[in-house]
């Protein structure tokens, strides 16, 4: 009974239903290479979603992470090229730290000036993108110039299968990084006080203040982690697609927020889980992927994602109202 009432169970049910439906329309859906490629598409959105989840739980919203991701990615790669450095760990660390620093700016404005997170992150997003294109550059860095170490790293597979026609396909090891980060986020949210303080802040900011939570710490933590995850995901993404495009990730915020809300997080704060978010991400990626396979126009894909955001938000609002009644 308790299991049935959990939103994760409901989301998993809907996901299964959607999978069966899509599988019926397009039997190729169930093929292993399609499933592998689906999971691969989960990685970047999924990692970013972890940050957005944290922000939503705390009652905020973040639309700046795609800008932070692209800036961290492009700056890092530019730096690597300039220094002639070819590695993996240090660049990933650098991109993460850059994202973290950007996130701290969000945290500063949200905490210090009690500003609405949407406005703050819209502002920082525009500034970071503008700065990147105006000062750092607009040119893409293609496969021929991309640091090879990054590409090799992102190419690692956990399993690989050889098809009858001799071509091989595999499941990217980046999935493990995603799972690891998701697990870490789950542990933070569930088993640390800072994680619980995010829920408390999202539940009732005034009560959280009275209870004696250090809200400065909480808010900075939340936006720094969201920024750091975005920076990390940004660089990983360029390794996976062998390309560093300073105009990347435009409009991604909608997809990620849609996925997180689809995963049961409340847009009003206070509710949400890692498992639900992962299911939400999978669902969104799967739907978008099927639309592509079915050759639905990209503009119509936007309509679908918009619909998902509205439907999922309406559903969660309805749920929260019923709970309060």
């Amino acid at each position, binding site marked *: 009974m308790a299991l049935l009432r959990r939103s994760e169970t409901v989301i998993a049910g809907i996901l299964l239903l959607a999978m069966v439906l899509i599988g019926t329309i397009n039997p190729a859906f169930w093929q292993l290479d399609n499933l592998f490629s689906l999971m691969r598409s989960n990685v970047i959105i999924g990692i970013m979603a972890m940050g957005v989840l944290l922000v939503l739980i705390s009652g905020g919203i973040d639309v700046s992470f795609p800008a932070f991701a692209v800036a961290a990615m492009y700056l890092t790669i530019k730096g690597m090229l300039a220094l002639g450095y070819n590695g993996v760990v240090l660049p990933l660390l650098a991109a993460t730290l850059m994202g973290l620093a950007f996130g701290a700016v969000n945290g500063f404005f949200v905490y210090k000036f009690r500003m609405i997170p949407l406005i703050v992150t819209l502002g920082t997003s525009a500034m970071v993108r503008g700065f990147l294109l105006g000062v750092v550059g607009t040119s893409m860095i293609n496969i021929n110039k991309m640091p090879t170490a990054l590409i090799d790293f992102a190419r690692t597979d956990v399993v690989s299968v050889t098809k009858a026609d001799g071509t091989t396909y595999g499941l990217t090891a980046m999935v493990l990084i995603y799972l690891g980060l998701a697990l870490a986020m789950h542990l933070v949210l569930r088993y*640390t*006080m800072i*994680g*619980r303080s995010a829920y*408390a802040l999202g*539940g009732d900011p005034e009560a959280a203040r*009275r*209870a004696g939570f250090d809200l400065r710490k909480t808010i900075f933590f939340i936006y720094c982690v969201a920024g750091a995850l975005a920076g990390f995901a940004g660089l990983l993404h360029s390794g996976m697609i062998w390309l560093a495009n300073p105009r990347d990730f435009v409009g991604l915020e909608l997809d990620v927020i849609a996925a997180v809300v689809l995963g049961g997080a409340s847009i009003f704060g*206070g509710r949400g889980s890692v498992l639900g978010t992962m299911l939400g991400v999978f669902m969104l990626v799967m739907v978008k992927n099927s639309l592509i396979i079915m050759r639905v126009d990209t503009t119509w894909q936007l309509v679908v994602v918009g619909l998902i955001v509205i439907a999922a938000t309406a559903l969660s609002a309805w749920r929260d109202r019923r709970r309060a009644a």
Partner: protein
Amino acid sequence: MSDGFIELRNIRKVFAGVVALDAMSLVIKPGEIHCLAGENGSGKSTVIKIMSGVYRPDGGEILIDGKPIAAMTPIEAIAHGVQVIYQDFSLFGNLTVAENLAMNVHLGEKRRLMNWRRTRAIAREAVDRLGVELDLDAEVASLPTAGKQLVAIARALMSDARLIIMDEPTTALTRKEVETLFRIVRDIQARGIAILFVSHKMREMLEISERITVIRNGRKVAEGPTGDFDEALITRHMTGGDILNEPYAWTPPPGPPPVPRLEIRGLTVPGKCEDLSLAIRPGEIVGLSGLLGSGRTDLALALFGMVPGYKGEILIDGAPVRLRTTQEAIAAGIAYVPEDRLTEGLFLPQSIKRNMLATSYERLAPKLVIDRSQAEEMTQGMVRAMQIATPTAEKPVMQLSGGNQQRVVLARWLLTDARVLILNGPTVGVDVGSKAEIHAKIRELAQHHGLAVLMISDDVLELVQNCNRIVLMHRGCFIEDLPAAAVTEETVSDRLKTFT
């Protein structure tokens, strides 16, 4: 010099030009039960917020154990053993009962990690200490008001408190629950913990406290052992005058009996109340009482169109109406002042004016444009009539004291030209002075404007004094319909006690 645990000396607090506290002094001795009495807006809640470090005073001193505290912060207050149960409980609705209970312990110990097993153990102990039944895994948002309060009280009891402050703790409790609370209060006092109690119910104050401080307009006007006070004296200190209370008399007009303003026939809300029939004639004030969960609120909600699935008939002035939405109810001439003004009635960040006019906009703007001067006139009139303590009607309702917020809700409905007025706990959290004014207003509406009033209340005295009939409800049924002239507070209370 002083033997107090905590002492306020000449505290001053100003909010944007409004002086909430002015030279306020208060001493609380270790282990005593102390009552703070005062009218709405006199500054009681502000005193509490200063003691708990939520507000910083603009002047004066706070001493704990005789030592001045430089800057009281919430954390410091908690560290000194000051615990507050707020009027709004200050709970996290999205978290479970267990986590809400254990939160302060974790924070106090400066934990970094969350131990769920320990959380449950702490919560279990807290609930046991309070001696009540609470589902530890329930989400707090899903609990009824009384349940939320129990959680808040249990939480305050569990820290190593030296002073527990309760801001109007009994307003949402039934008599039985109040008795439980008082038993607990005496129990914790026996452990050497002081209790500061804010209430508008004189009888409770006199019953539970050892010392009383009366505050008026942000200043202490009287202080002393409870034995030195009686209801009249406290009232005099609070208001600077006496208040008379006469029972409400209603005589049917000569001739054939008038058509009832409101009549219900066989009203049934599945699982909540069954086969209720009642007629209220113009000018009647009918009281409705019963324990929490007796179905009285469900009846009110059904009458206000919030239970579209009800069965049975509702007639207004003899004409059957079907109430499926609140709009239909309002159109039928029904006004409802809810029990929980904070979540059901008010838009806290909005101005007094907007809150008052919320249900009148349609009337004010027949052609889509609001008649501003009329709107202004209506609000000004109401602010004056209801004696709301505010410099301007533009002030956000959030900044009003609890009792003044209640007046705004009442004012809103008085503006709708309703024919049937349903009041659910009309004077919960309202001081004696304003209570009398609100009652007078309600009587006037019934007597001179022919409204039918259904007054739901836990305060039996309020019903006895203001109704001409009292209906008792239990487990979804009407048990008795008593003429108020034939009963006293005691007989009704005794009757209610037999309901279990």
